[in-house]
């Protein structure tokens, strides 16, 4: 309580430029990893009453910076000041004690425990978990936030979006005075993002300091007070609050783009949808009829899913996360057992075929779970390009690995897809999210593709990579392939798809041609109204 009050007073007296009121300040902080300087003498000040937005490409070093603030990593050089005093944040426990609460980019919940138990984690070990006290606190916080959480549900039963809410809630329950959100909007619906934004504004008014990491410039402009931009581990620019307030959204965005990419693009997110001609007469490449799958512990089932995709067409699947998108993708790819319906590729039924056989016939699936199933993290980048082709010529001949062949092609793909990696031998898990995604793109779009399923292809990617990925997807369709694009980002779907279907509770509730009023019609479908 006292801390909060103090912070609140601090924010009142905070005058621009007065360093004394930083909650946390970084001075010349450097962090190295084998083969890479992830943070290069970074200066940063974080103040109460401000949302400090951190921007930067994939691999720019944002999460690394957060790691040092939350006690996970120790800086190699430089100092961290907390309340003006040089402080070594030795452990996450220490960070929590200092009032630094973090929502990490990767889920930090224990799947086997309930939400309540996760929130209670960290109490004195000899105690009984105080569920009642927690319930009261959570009720108070959620009421003011306008969200609901199922305290007694197991975390493994929640959707990713719900899990993210739990993590935010956890940081709140802890009475943090500095709240760090690392890409916390990536899993939220547009409505959820707005709510989170409102919440952030309310919290900073109460005197909290917030560090907010995002790849979406509009969010940065809408919710931020101060923006710092990282590039290749270095801080390349900062927009302080007074400038921030003086500028309009468009100007801010163009300033940021300046900082991040140099002067190139105007409004990067408003990509004009290239007009493709999809011939209506052409036979559908992919025909799905009445596809059904059984529900499992933590996923809804699928019921009577039907759609067609013609060559050159992009069909979007919109919907709130956790409504069966992943199950649909897996059922199509052959990774999930179906209980009925048919899937036809170029007219031949493939629902009985295995994953590998479907791939051979040209069905490709780009998963959203890059590290979990998309790659083998400890294997070199080069091998990961060919995970789905093991044994195929020319990379293997008579079952024997042709290392030269593999390395040659891998080097080519690295260049073509602009994968930033220290070397071909680097374990792929060491790459940042965006670069792993490029590896997957390169793999799935390789020769022989006819139908490609993209599941959240730009999730967690920075702007440049997002644009590049979208361009690839469009180019894929332009080559005459059929594309199924699953995304929770409505803008993305609207900017790329020919038609958009909406999925809810494992069923398609409607399909909309992407013309004029598509936005409102899809929106209506998503919130459960007729289109």
């Amino acid at each position: 309580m006292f801390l909060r009050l103090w912070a609140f007073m601090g924010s009142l007296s905070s005058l621009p430029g007065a360093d004394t009121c930083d909650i946390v300040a970084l001075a010349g902080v450097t962090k190295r990893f084998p083969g890479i300087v992830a943070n290069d003498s970074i200066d940063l000040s974080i103040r109460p009453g401000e949302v400090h937005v951190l921007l930067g490409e994939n691999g720019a070093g944002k999460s690394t910076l957060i790691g040092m603030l939350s006690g996970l990593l120790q800086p190699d050089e430089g100092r961290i000041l907390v309340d003006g005093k040089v402080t070594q944040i030795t452990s996450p426990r220490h960070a929590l004690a200092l009032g630094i609460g973090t929502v990490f980019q990767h889920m930090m919940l224990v799947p086997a425990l309930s939400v309540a138990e996760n929130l209670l984690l960290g109490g004195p070990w000899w105690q009984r978990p105080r569920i009642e006290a927690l319930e009261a606190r959570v009720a108070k916080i959620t009421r003011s936030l306008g969200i609901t959480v199922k305290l007694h549900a197991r975390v493994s039963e929640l959707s990713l979006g719900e899990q993210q809410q739990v993590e935010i809630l956890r940081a709140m329950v802890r009475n943090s005075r500095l709240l760090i959100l690392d890409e916390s909007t990536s899993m939220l619906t547009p409505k959820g993002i707005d709510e989170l934004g409102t919440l952030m504004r309310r919290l900073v008014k109460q005197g909290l300091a917030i560090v907010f990491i995002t790849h979406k410039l509009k969010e940065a402009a809408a919710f931020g007070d101060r923006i710092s931009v990282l590039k290749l581990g270095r801080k390349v620019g900062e927009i302080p609050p007074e400038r921030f307030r003086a500028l309009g959204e468009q100007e801010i965005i163009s300033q940021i783009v300046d900082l991040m990419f140099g002067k190139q693009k105007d409004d990067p997110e408003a990509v004009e949808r290239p007009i493709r001609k999809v011939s209506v007469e052409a036979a559908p490449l992919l025909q799905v009829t009445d596809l059904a799958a059984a529900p499992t512990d933590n996923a809804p089932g699928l019921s009577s899913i039907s759609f067609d995709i013609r060559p050159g067409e992009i069909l979007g699947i919109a919907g709130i996360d956790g409504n069966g998108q992943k199950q649909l993708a897996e059922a199509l790819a052959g990774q999930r057992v179906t209980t009925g319906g048919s899937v036809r590729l170029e007219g031949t039924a493939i629902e009985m075929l295995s994953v590998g056989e479907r791939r051979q016939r040209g069905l490709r699936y780009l998963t959203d779970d890059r590290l979990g199933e998309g790659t083998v993290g400890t294997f070199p980048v080069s091998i990961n390009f060919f995970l789905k082709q093991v044994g195929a010529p020319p990379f293997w001949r008579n079952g024997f690995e042709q290392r030269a062949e593999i390395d040659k092609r891998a080097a080519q793909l690295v260049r073509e897809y602009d994968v930033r990696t220290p070397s071909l031998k680097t374990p792929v898990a060491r790459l940042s999210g965006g670069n792993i995604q490029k590896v997957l793109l390169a793999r799935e779009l390789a020769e022989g593709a006819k139908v490609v399923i993209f599941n959240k292809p730009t999730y967690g990617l920075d702007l440049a990579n997002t644009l590049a990925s979208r361009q690839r997807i469009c180019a894929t369709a332009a080559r005459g392939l059929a594309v199924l694009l699953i995304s929770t980002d409505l803008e993305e779907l609207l900017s790329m798809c020919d038609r958009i279907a909406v999925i809810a509770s494992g069923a398609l509730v409607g399909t909309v041609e992407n013309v004029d009023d598509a936005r409102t019609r899809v929106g209506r479908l998503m919130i459960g109204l007729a289109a």
Partner: protein
Amino acid sequence: MSIDTPSVNATAPDPTSAAAARRDILHRLLMTLGPILAALVIAGCILLAVGVDPLAYYGYVLEKGLFSPLGIQQTLTRMAPLLFLAAGLIVAFRAGMWNLGGDGQFLLGAVTAAASAPVFVQLMPAWLALICSFLIAAAVAMIWSLVPALLRGYQGVNEIITTLMMTFLGTSLANVLVKLVFRDPGTTVPQTRTLPVEDRLPRLFDTTITSGLLLGLAAIIIVHLVMTRTAFGLKLRIVGANPRAAIHAGLGVPGLTVAVFAISAGLAGLAGAVDIIGVQGNVRADWNPAYGLAVIPAVFLARMNGFAAIGFVFLLSVLSIGGESAARRLGVPNHFTLVLVSIVLIVLALAEYVDHRYNQSRKA
């Protein structure tokens, strides 16, 4: 042990890379010999405590395990079954399957070989008979591994439990087979018929080294190459490193699981067969050398690399042959060898860690 520098340089086309390679080899040697030396010092303290001169002890270990013609022959002979076991473990561990049932598979392979070989040699040429015995020993061990394999592949039952249980069961079953089914009626001792010495695997040249050693070396090298150079090996490694990625990549994981168990158990069965057909000649009831337990850490320390595993198996053999002799000469109970092996394993593991740390800090 010294390296002849000039001659190495003379043959090397590129002096700088040759120098680097030499430094690398030297480094590896240091990283292996250093810890062993440290382990010997620690174990030496225990010897001192019980009143035995450690230098004399180690002198005997080296002399009787390594440097005497007799000792080295025994050591190399001892390696044959261990190499097969190590090969089997490499396959399983690289594929992420904890096959801890090696002893049961080994014994069943041994019993099968012991039961079949003496019969076969009467029916067909010796070389063919031995091949047949090897094959059915491998087959029986494979079949024995089917239960854990199927349970793991299709039911997801953890294989540590099942293989441990199957090894308890397999040991008993091997006994039952020896006592009740394949028992040699010609003796009161419960054991199988004995394969005559002249029908066993030939010895190498004029020594007592069994040619099983060559088979074992071949097995482990082939396994190493398959695991690192072929598509099949890569598939297994994918299953081992990330089973979900394997499913995503369209690999038939259950099938591969069964294959891994079959190969791993088959090699363990061959280990049993090579010990019987190469050296022992028969299986006695209650015989269980429990080789598996010591080979498992050796394979890990070798990071599942076949060549490194050969080195560690060699080390184990030297210690066990030399240790036995030294213990007898100095009046230490033979159990001391176990202590020595244990200390060597722990210190090697520690040294590897220190080395790894050092490398990392140098790179950063």
